[in-house]
């Protein structure tokens, strides 16, 4: 790779990392706004998540007396993993030097690494809530991972590659074709997205009700900058999942390598897609009810079956 190309690639990488990291809380604010509107509540301002982050960053951190270094390191590790994940997913352009570092399978690995750190940190203080949250988080994840991998397998069997940028280039820049298999996969993916991001019907991020919470139970003992990083990372995780969904199922508009002129178009397309996705997410969350924890295996089992159907459709029909 020549120097100008490498510079261009690095610039594209940096740009999209910054855009995605900055857009994460905004996207969460947008989802929350729509949720409030759909539920006939008065909505918080769009920038509420940023205000929360700023407020948290200014506070004194208070941690439990028996917290180990693992507890303090975990938010940084989780945030770092999310940044890495964001630098792999093609958000604006497929011109990503870091994307070579990991394909979709490794991306699942990065998310798992972050999750394990979070769960270990939750067990570190030794409260009932923390361990309960860790257990439930690991439960949801091991049920969700096979479904997620099946979705990725379907996409990668179409494009003959597990690299996300290659998948996007194949799906977006080839002659337009409709893949029925991807429709099944998309439904399965949305179900996994809801489960993995602590959304209704699997988890409710807005409550502190002990019996229902998963994600909140794990982060109860965090405060100030640590909590800010954890919350920011959670919004980035939602962003990662949404952009993976965009890349797999509606990849049109993402700029091909080296075409800087298309980046503004890609940005506009991204914002539009995120806006729609946020609305859709809020709608799903509003019309569905929170499930019992032991209904989650059935729910994720359904997601897995749909993903398998998608893959079998692909193998049978070749589309």
């Amino acid at each position, binding site marked *: 790779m020549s120097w100008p190309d490498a510079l261009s690639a690095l610039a594209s990488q940096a740009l999209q990392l910054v855009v995605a990291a900055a857009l994460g809380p905004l996207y969460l604010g947008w989802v929350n706004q729509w949720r409030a509107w759909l539920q006939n509540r008065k909505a918080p301002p769009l920038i509420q998540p940023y205000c929360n982050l700023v407020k948290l*960053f200014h506070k*004194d*951190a208070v*941690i*439990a*007396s*028996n*917290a*180990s270094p*693992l507890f303090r390191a975990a938010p*940084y*590790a989780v*945030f*770092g993993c999310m*940044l890495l994940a964001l630098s792999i997913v093609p958000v604006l352009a497929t011109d990503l030097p*870091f994307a*070579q*570092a*990991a*394909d979709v399978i*490794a991306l699942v*690995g*990065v998310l*798992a*690494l972050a999750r*394990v750190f979070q*769960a*270990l940190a939750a*067990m570190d*203080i*030794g*409260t*009932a*809530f*923390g*361990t309960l949250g*860790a*257990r439930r988080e*690991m*439960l949801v994840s*091991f*049920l969700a*991972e*096979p479904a997620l*991998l*099946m979705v990725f*397998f379907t996409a990668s*069997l179409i494009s003959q590659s*597990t*690299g996300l940028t290659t998948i996007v280039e194949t799906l977006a820049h080839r002659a337009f074709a409709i893949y029925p298999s991807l429709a099944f996969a998309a439904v399965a993916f949305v179900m996994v997205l809801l489960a993995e991001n602590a959304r209704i019907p699997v988890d409710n991020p807005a409550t502190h009700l*002990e019996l229902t919470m998963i994600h909140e139970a794990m982060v*109860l*003992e965090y405060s100030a*900058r640590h909590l800010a*990083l954890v919350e920011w990372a959670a919004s980035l995780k939602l962003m990662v999942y949404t952009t993976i969904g965009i890349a797999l199922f509606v990849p049109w508009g993402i700029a091909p390598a080296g075409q800087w002129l298309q980046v503004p178009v890609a940005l506009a397309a991204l914002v539009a897609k995120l806006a729609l996705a946020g609305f859709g997410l809020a709608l799903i969350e509003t019309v569905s009810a929170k499930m019992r*924890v*032991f209904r989650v295996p059935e729910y994720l089992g359904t997601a897995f079956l749909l993903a398998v159907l998608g*893959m079998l459709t692909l*193998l*049978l029909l070749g589309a």
Partner: protein
Amino acid sequence: MPADLISEPGFALRGSLAVIAGWLVVGFLGLLRPHSLRFVGRLLFPLGAGAGIVLFFISLATIQAPPQALVLPLGLPDLPFHVRTDALSAFFLLLLGAGAAGISMFAAGYFRPGEGTSPGLLCLQYHVFLASMALVMLADDAYLFMVAWEMMALSSYFLVTSQHRLPEIRRAGFLYLLIAHLGALAILLAFGVLQAGQGDYTFASMRASQPGALWASITFFLAFLGFGAKAGIVPLHVWLPEAHPAAPSPVSAMMSAVMLKTAIYGLLRLTYDLLGVQLWWWGVVALAVGLLTMLYGVLFAAVQTDMKRLLAYSSIENVGSIVTGFGLSLVFHGYGLHLMAALALTAALYHCLNHAFFKSLLFLSTGHVLHATGSRNLGKLGGLIHRMPWLACLTLVGVLGIAALPPLNGFVSEWLLLQAFLFSPGLPNTYLIMLIPLAAAAVVLSAALGAYVMVKFYGVIFLGHPREEKLKDAHDAGPWELAGLAWLALPCLLLGVFPVAAIVALSPAVEVLVPASLAPSLAGSNGWYLTPIAPERASYAPFLFLCVILLAVLLTWLLVKRFYHGRLRRTDAWDCGFPGVSARMQDTAEGFGQPIRQIFEAFFRTERHLPTAFDERPRYYLNVEDRLWHWLYLPVAAAVGRLSAMISVLQRGRIHLYLLYSFATLLLLLVFVR
């Protein structure tokens, strides 16, 4: 090491034999002063570790060298021992040497006075065990192979029963010996079929024989049964969770890390090297058994409350994953897709290597926890990260590795295996194309469950509050133990971060088995990107990966530190404002396993007693058992018992009756001879 010495013919073989002899000498020296912990622990075990390091370097240097063979002036008249090294045995010897070095180093600091067998005798058994495993990998005829195999089984039996005064340990030892011998019988029969009545037991003549499809299949399944019993595939896995907790920790580590791999070695050697034909449907059977073993192991690991039983079940899972890779390679190989077969085999071999390091690391770490706290029960531990920070740190490496998390080593083999699964649409069989991707889902499920198990393992032992008062006196591991653990943790990191170099180095071992390897396609990449077949298909660059994560973490930390004050206060846990938090409120191992028990209810045989409000002495217990005991083992044992009772009718204790039996037998034989 000077280059001309290595290139001298027979160097590797002579070097390996010298290491074996060295181990035997060290072992017998232990008998000189069997009760001296200083002599045995501080002198002999480090010597054994040194020999392991030598073996590691010899194998590393000769994995690329051509095969070497030698006939030893030992054995029976007209039946001398044949030994041979090629890349495959060098690969497994490398694993043995590196594992033995770490485990012996740990063992040097591990021994405490007053535990079962005297240290000197343990030293002998342990080093005979090491030597016999090395001989298994060097053997070039069925005779030496079986001798070494039995030596391995017996020495490990004595090691398992080193605390033979406890009845449950004797029971565990008996079960181990029983299944080991069933396996050995099957292997012996497999060799018997292979030599096909020529009376020549060398591997060279077996390679030359060309059995038909039927006899080849019989040989393969006998070998699969025999080696599977040693490796612990379902349903022959029951000895593992009994024997591992019974044995001293370095022995459990050695058995799990290396001895299970000798079975994999035997399976690979016999299937790919000695048998002339490989049929694709064997691979389907192996794949199915591997997947079942994997899921079974990890599900049972999730509900264990004993550290070592948990790790033993996790070994079953890992063996299942290796067998899955082997089965997949056999399917590809049977259809002539050699490159794909090489990919699946690389995944299996890489996982062998990974498992040797992280599993021995974890077993040794539980060994130290056991010594420091006197408890193997997860329900009585907790909070040890504060008392033993170094051990906790090194164990975390092993835990992240075995949970298949990037950028550590376990992930590389899982990634390679999943990549191999993605090539299944290239198969010419529609059913396989449909079914094999589903198998990939099972692999992912068990990997994700593996992460669950490891969070439980680490969280319950090292994190939270200490669940017992006495844990406050626990102390960190000593320098010998930490050195051993660090020696094992380092490869977990290196194999995870630099997989390309490792795969290129082990590719000759793959080439022994199938006529292809990943080395040519990896040579095109610049060494940082792991691209098994082609860069546009898939790539993974763990070093870059690690750098980006570390950079992101560092940058975040610096930014937070630069722009916001770093004030920190410590106080009691908040816990939603509930007062009086105590250590008993945390999840126990049983609690952590409860969701698994509920979701996968069908797999377990659960016995639970709940106290009622009227109980004088309320008692709660939960017992989760393996259904296979009741479905397979106990019926078989009962049938054997009934059969024995029937046969014992013949035994009357009267001489003239026995003479009659002998006479009848002779008559019968005469009929046959005619």
